[in-house]
Every structure is written in structure tokens, then in C-alpha cells.
């Protein structure tokens, strides 16, 4: 009983991290039809910001990680994606690979490719007892913070003027512009939000693994991207759900598969993904009224 609750909480916490990552990707796809593989580097750079600021008070480190991820997101938008805004999605996709590789190699050039240990917030490694079940504090923190970010983002998109403009732009960007919605502002806001989400994911990833390395964000993004696809590209609810399902499924498979099949758990996840796409090619929650970009 205790073990299955622990597994479930673990699955929910890992699922939350993937949901946040998938949301970051989904936000940008929504307004720009760009699948931003460089989202992984936002996560990586935020982790290196934590490393650089190690020893300073925790709030300073957190602020530094968020600032670096947001700034980097805004810079990549300005330098790489804005000039290509009217290009077709394939061009955007390829340029996002270029940005991703460039940032990765830049990091290797400057700080080297070796893993570096980083003992960030060791207190989160403690076990706590909740209703008779021993759980890791980190998992609970991950779930709570993810939930807060999800609620906050939903509130922003539903209740603020800029949030409404972002939703309109995601559905029909040209019509939104005809009504006076500023493309630059909406897109910059989407990138900034994706930076905040990336920084949050980065912090939890660092606490969980205790290391930083230049490729740490990429693996996460590839899996989260699969999540946005099965959730339904262009739908934010779909992205969050898809990311969550893929993350949670991999943890549950790890726990439920017979030991000699566990090494193949990714294969099982992707078979499930293939099946979802076979029966629901538009994803679990297809985007409504998706229109061509500007």
C-alpha cells in the first residue's frame, strides 16, 4: 500500500515537470507555430545560473535562474525567431535546432562538458510522513509548485488583457492584429512565460539529480514535445495533459513492468504514443479553430 502511494506520488511529480515543460513549448507553438527545441537550453542555462550563484541566499539564486531563462528566451526570440516570423514552420523548426545547438556548444566552450555537482536545496531531499505514508519533500514541492504555476498561468490567460490577446493570437493571429493586438508584445510575453516555466523545471531537476550538464534540458524537451503532440499541438490544456501523461506513464511503467523489461520502458511509452496518434491524430484535446499564422 505504502509503496504504491509512493509510486503514484512519484509519477504525479515527474508528470508535473513534463507538463510544465510541455506547456512552455505549447505556449510558443500557440502564438508562433514554432516548435522551440531551444526550450531545453532555457532549462539548462537556468541550471547553470543556479551553479554560478551557488552560496548566495536561495531567493537570489531562484531570481537569478528565472532572470537568465527569461532573458535568454527574449534574446532568442529577438535575434533568431523574429526575423523568421513569416517563414514557414519548417524553417522555424530548423532554426530552433540551430539555436539549441548553438547554445549547447556555447556552454561547452565556456564551462566545459563535464557534469558538475550542485547541492541545491538539500532540505528538499528529506522524507516526510503524510497520512501514514513516507514521501520525499521534493515530490510534494514539485507537485505544489507546478499546480500553483498552472493555476497562475490559467488565471493570467483567462483574466488579463494580454492573456486574452495571447489566446486570440493563438487562434487567428492576423485577425488579432487587425483588431490592434501587438504581435511583438504577445510573442515576447509568450517567450517570457516559457522562460519562467523553464526556470521552475530547472530548479526541480537540479534538486532531484544534484548535477548540471550542458545537455540536461534537451532530453526533457524531446519527451515533453512528444507530450504536446499527443495532447494536441496548439492546445495548452492538451500540452499540459500530454506532458503529464508521458511523464507519469514512464514512472508507472518503471514500477509496474517486470524487471527485465524495465530497460525498454521508453519503448512502451512510445508505443502508447503511436497508438494515441493512430486513433486521435489531432491529439487528445485538439486545438479549436486553428488558423494560419500571419
Amino acid at each position: 500500500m505504502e509503496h504504491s502511494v509512493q509510486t503514484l506520488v512519484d509519477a504525479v511529480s515527474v508528470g508535473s515537470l513534463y507538463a510544465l515543460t510541455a506547456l512552455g513549448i505549447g505556449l510558443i507553438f500557440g502564438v508562433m507555430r514554432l516548435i522551440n527545441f531551444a526550450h531545453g537550453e532555457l532549462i539548462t542555462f537556468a541550471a547553470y545560473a543556479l551553479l554560478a550563484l551557488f552560496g548566495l541566499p536561495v531567493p537570489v539564486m531562484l531570481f537569478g535562474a528565472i532572470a537568465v531563462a527569461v532573458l535568454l528566451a527574449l534574446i532568442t526570440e529577438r535575434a533568431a525567431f523574429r526575423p523568421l516570423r513569416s517563414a514557414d514552420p519548417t524553417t522555424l523548426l530548423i532554426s530552433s535546432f540551430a539555436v539549441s545547438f548553438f547554445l549547447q556548444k556555447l556552454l561547452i566552450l565556456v564551462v566545459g562538458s563535464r557534469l558538475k555537482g550542485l547541492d541545491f536545496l538539500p532540505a528538499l531531499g528529506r522524507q516526510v510522513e503524510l497520512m501514514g505514508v513516507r514521501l520525499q519533500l521534493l515530490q510534494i514541492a514539485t507537485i505544489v509548485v507546478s499546480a500553483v504555476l498552472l493555476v497562475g498561468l490559467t488565471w493570467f490567460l483567462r483574466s488579463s488583457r494580454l492573456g486574452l490577446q495571447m489566446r486570440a493570437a493563438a487562434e487567428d493571429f492576423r485577425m488579432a492584429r487587425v483588431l490592434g493586438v501587438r504581435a511583438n508584445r504577445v510573442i515576447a510575453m509568450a517567450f517570457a512565460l516559457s522562460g519562467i516555466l523553464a526556470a521552475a523545471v530547472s530548479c526541480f531537476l537540479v534538486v532531484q539529480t544534484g548535477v548540471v550538464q550542458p545537455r540536461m534540458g534537451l532530453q526533457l524537451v524531446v519527451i515533453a514535445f512528444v507530450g504536446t503532440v499527443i495532447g494536441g499541438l496548439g492546445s495548452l490544456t492538451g500540452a499540459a495533459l500530454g506532458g503529464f501523461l508521458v511523464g507519469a506513464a514512464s514512472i508507472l511503467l518503471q514500477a509496474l513492468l517486470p524487471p527485465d523489461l524495465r530497460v525498454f520502458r521508453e519503448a512502451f511509452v512510445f508505443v502508447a504514443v503511436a497508438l494515441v496518434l493512430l486513433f486521435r491524430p489531432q491529439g487528445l484535446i485538439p486545438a479549436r479553430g486553428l488558423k494560419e499564422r500571419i
Partner: protein
Amino acid sequence: MSAPLLQVSGLVVRYGAVTAVRGVDLAVGEGEIISIVGPNGAGKTSLVSAIAGIVPAASGSIVFGGKSLAGIALEDVVAHGIALVPEGRHIFASLTVTENLLLGATVRSDADGVRADLDRSFTMFPILGARRRQPAGQLSGGEQQQLAIARALISRPRLLMLDEPSLGLAPAVVDQVYVLLRSVREQGVTILLVEQNAERVFGLVDRVHVMSGGEFGLSGTAAEIKTDPRFDAAYFGVHMHEASSGAKSEP
């Protein structure tokens, strides 16, 4: 006579090698209601899109309220007082009726005024009031057209441009839309109305331009155009001299 609200001179619109608008001159005076009629592919939508800033003008000038609109970003046009009800309506299907209307007020900063205009929209378009919390995608075609018009009006435009507002609507619904346009007109909004169906516009508008092959073939008051024997020729794009002198034989 004072300068017209909208003055388009020698406007040319090109898409690659295709020229959609070939040097059109158009003047719309304050408070007027002008229609451009013509068949599919005549260049009507390109003309309106160029005025709205959606497509660039290859040459020519667009002056609105005394200011040139050359090189203005698409999202700045509405702030100058031009609102567009595009062909196909382009309402935001996943957003509620109220949210669609609020987006129409993007350029306004007077929150109280917007709220008052929102209530006014619901009075003028009762069906939108009844469905204000529903996703716009659930509205019928005619209701969506009303929403698109209400959304354009809430920016308080000086010029309202409508591109084929009757397209895809049942005749009875088109009648309703035209009744609405009449009341919009009575509020003093200047209207530029593009239609394929010329018969529809005659009862509503002051002047009509018949467009074909990217040019105005015939222009005049609604009463003149309605009875002009050259109308069919202009509408279907036969040049005037050819129409009047009969088919010319090639030398």
C-alpha cells in the same frame, strides 16, 4: 467640399506576378456609405485588405483623415479609426462572445467607456447579449456575422469596412444583416461595403463602384448604377468601348 475621409489614389496591389488591383482611385466622404460590387476575383478583397494594412500596396497612396497610411503596421491601422469585418468573419471560435467583443476594443484605454459600449452592443445585437458567455464558435453563421460587426464597431471606428457580409448566409439572415447596417449607418459611421451581390446594396448605399479585373469599370449613385445599361458589361469585365462599339475584329 472638404477633403474626403478616405482618399485612395492610383492603388496597385500585386501578389508576385499577379496584379490584383490596377490603379484604383476611391474617395469616401465622412458619413457616406459606399459599395464596391463585382464578381469573384475582381480584386475587391485585395483593395479592402490594402486599406486595412493586411497586404502592402505596390504603388499608389492611401490617405485617411488627412494622414497617409503608407508603411503603417497592420496593428496600428485600427487606432487610426478603420475597422474591418473581414470576409469569412474570422471570429475567435474558442473565445466567448464577450471576449471577442473585448478584443475589438484592444486599442481603447477607457475601461468604463468599453463597458458601456459592451452593454450597447448587447442592446443593438440582443442575440449576442443572450449568448455572451458562449464560445463564439457555437453561434450560427448569421450570429457570427453580427458578432464580427459588433466587434468592429466597439473600436469606435470612423470608417467601417465590410467584406462580403452576406457570404454564406441564408437570404432571410442577409436581410437582418442589412437592417443592422442601416442602423449602423444612422449612427453616422462611414461605411465601405464590398459585395458580390449588387442587387443587395442598391437600397442601402449612396454610391456604387463596379469592380472587375482589378479596376473600377463603372461608378455612380446607386440609382444611376441600378438602371445603367452598361452595368452587366462592367460587372463581367468587358471594357466600355468594346461593350458600346460591339466586338472588335482582330486585324
